[in-house]
């Protein structure tokens, strides 16, 4: 048998090994991640160890963990943490419920589907900052449509209108409501996709087994939707912990600090007060909170899958 020469170098370059090809394909992604995520994070952690206040004349002063010490004695931090968690705890299930409702409704066999689909997608496509602006206008004491409708329905007093955005409880409620409206849309989208993946024959089997539509919902739809729900929840929770745009445009964190979230506090310290060191320490704390919450979720999910 004649020995056959192995392919030329050029030929071999055209057929890179899986590992080389993988490295080449993943390189741009990781370069970007390094530039826009990894390096900034490192920088952030580094900054959190310094006093970078402008009153220091712009000279960084290494102070170790002092910033963190300050964070934990800062009532604003605890207040913002409380608000952030409250918003998370309210809006995540809220958006899930509303989103599920919307998804179920949108999944009905309409003859003309596009108005429904468009209505489902519109809040998602609306920038968060717009949503905040618009809803702030809705909730305005005098010119807001919310009070106007309540008054027209006789549910509120015309002379003493509710000052939605000026009372801590109401303001937080209004912010949560806006977030739920805005985020339930993407929720619904994911759930709708999940709904459409449930095999029709499962419903038929359940129907033959004797399940009423209501029972089918609980016994087939909901359990089959679980993976989508989990994805949506994780996704939503992570973004809820980062809530910024809506309270920022609606209330500026007010009245007082009643609707200030962690992200807003970080923004205030870094951008408004230019206290980079302290702001960085706050940011690191938000990271840790995000990580803890995600880890708890993922463990929960892992347990469910097992």
């Amino acid at each position, binding site marked *: 048998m004649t020995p056959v020469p192995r392919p030329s170098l050029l030929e071999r370059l055209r057929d890179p090994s899986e590992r080389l090809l993988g490295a080449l394909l993943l390189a741009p992604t990781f370069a970007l991640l390094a530039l826009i995520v990894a390096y900034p994070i490192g920088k952030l952690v580094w900054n959190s160890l310094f006093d970078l206040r402008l009153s220091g004349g712009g000279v960084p002063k290494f102070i170790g963990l002092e910033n963190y010490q300050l964070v934990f004695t800062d009532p604003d931090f605890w207040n913002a943490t409380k608000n952030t968690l409250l918003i998370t705890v309210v809006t995540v299930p809220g958006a899930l419920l509303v989103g599920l409702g919307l998804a179920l409704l949108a999944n009905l066999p309409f003859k003309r589907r596009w108005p429904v689909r468009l209505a489902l997608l519109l809040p998602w496509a609306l920038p968060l900052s717009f949503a905040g602006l618009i809803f702030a206008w809705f909730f305005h004491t005098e010119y807001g449509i919310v009070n106007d409708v309540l008054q027209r329905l006789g549910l509120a007093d015309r002379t003493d209108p509710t000052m939605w955005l000026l009372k801590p409880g109401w303001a937080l409620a209004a912010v949560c409501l806006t977030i739920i409206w805005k985020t339930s849309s993407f929720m619904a989208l994911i759930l709708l996709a999940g709904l459409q993946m449930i095999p029709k024959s499962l419903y*038929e089997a359940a*129907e033959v087994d004797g399940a009423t539509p209501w029972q089918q919902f609980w016994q087939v739809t909901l359990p089959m939707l679980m993976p989508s729900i989990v994805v949506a929840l994780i996704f939503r929770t992570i973004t809820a912990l980062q809530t910024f745009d809506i309270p920022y445009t609606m209330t500026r964190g007010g009245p007082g600090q009643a609707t200030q979230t962690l992200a807003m506090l970080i923004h205030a310290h870094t951008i408004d007060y230019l206290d980079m060191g302290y702001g960085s320490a706050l940011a690191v704390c938000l990271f840790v909170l995000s990580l803890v919450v995600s880890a708890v979720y993922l463990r929960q999910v892992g347990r469910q899958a097992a």
Partner: protein
Amino acid sequence: MAEVLLRQVRKSYDGRTPVLHGIDLEVRHGEFTVFVGPSGCGKSTLLRSIAGLETIDSGEICIGGRPVQHLPPRLRDIAMVFQDYALYPHKTLFENMAFGLRLRKTPEAEIQRRVGEAADLLKITHLLQRKPAALSGGQRQRVAIGRAIVRQPQVFLFDEPLSNLDAQLRQEMRSEIKRLHQRLGATIIYVTHDQVEAMTLADRIAVLRGGHVMQYDRPQQIYHQPAADFVAGFIGSPPMNLADVARVPGATPALDFGGLAWPVPAALQPALAAAPAAARLRLGVRPEHLHLQRSQADDIAWPGTLQLLEPLGAETLATVRIGQAELVARVPASFEAAPGTALQLHVQPAQLHLFDADSGHAWHATPSSNPHAES
């Protein structure tokens, strides 16, 4: 009494193209009926109409003497086994099987007993705590059947339950379903497009085509006296050879395969006489009735050339060109010859079938005994 009666069942999905054209069928109590037919002929639609998963446009469906066409599936007292099993992925096998009973508020002890019995019968007791994802195809199929059994319904409906299994498993499950039927004595309606399944399982077979029942009869009857060329060509493996033939004008009745004319034997003459003179004719003969040697004195002999040999082990399929026609013959495994070899095929005249090439209708010596064939 769990007989199923269909009267003039009509159905169309879009309100224009009918999918079922007025089906009449009667499935007796305890009978195993198989709906067979090519893809898209309406088998599933018919079965699902019986189950109540599709509403019918008109007609009547009676189960156990009770008209059910207006009832939802859960009130029809039927159980169904789906092609893709449709097991609830999030429930254990036990819960899958118990689901129907729980919905009916059956006492827990009774549920335990019935599921246990069914699991024993299907040999899946050791799997009861698993979820469907952890099962093989055959095991899933068993669970799907088990889920139907525990409900003890009046009628079992199966929609191509074996089509997702591989050949060996299919054969095994087929025997098992047959034995199950023997043991339970239940009324079963079973849809398949596999004619072997139909032949081996059925008490009676309904052959469907384009929303019509072509023939509804016992398997042997369907095999040996197909009411139409479609039935003949669909049933049997390999199926009946069908070849267009032309009448040869002349004194003695003769037929022509296209380049090869042969006198019509006496046994076939009455059938030929039944066909109008203008009808185009199609001849049918089963592969096992074509022999390489003359076996009886009145055999017809057709000269031809060998095209292809396909050894199956126990026997061999020989494709032989006769005139313009290609006929497949079952020949002994020992037969070997090169393609192109000239040979003769012998057939008993009584084994020949004659069909109307246009309508597919079978011409018999006696007036047709088959009310289902469409003209």
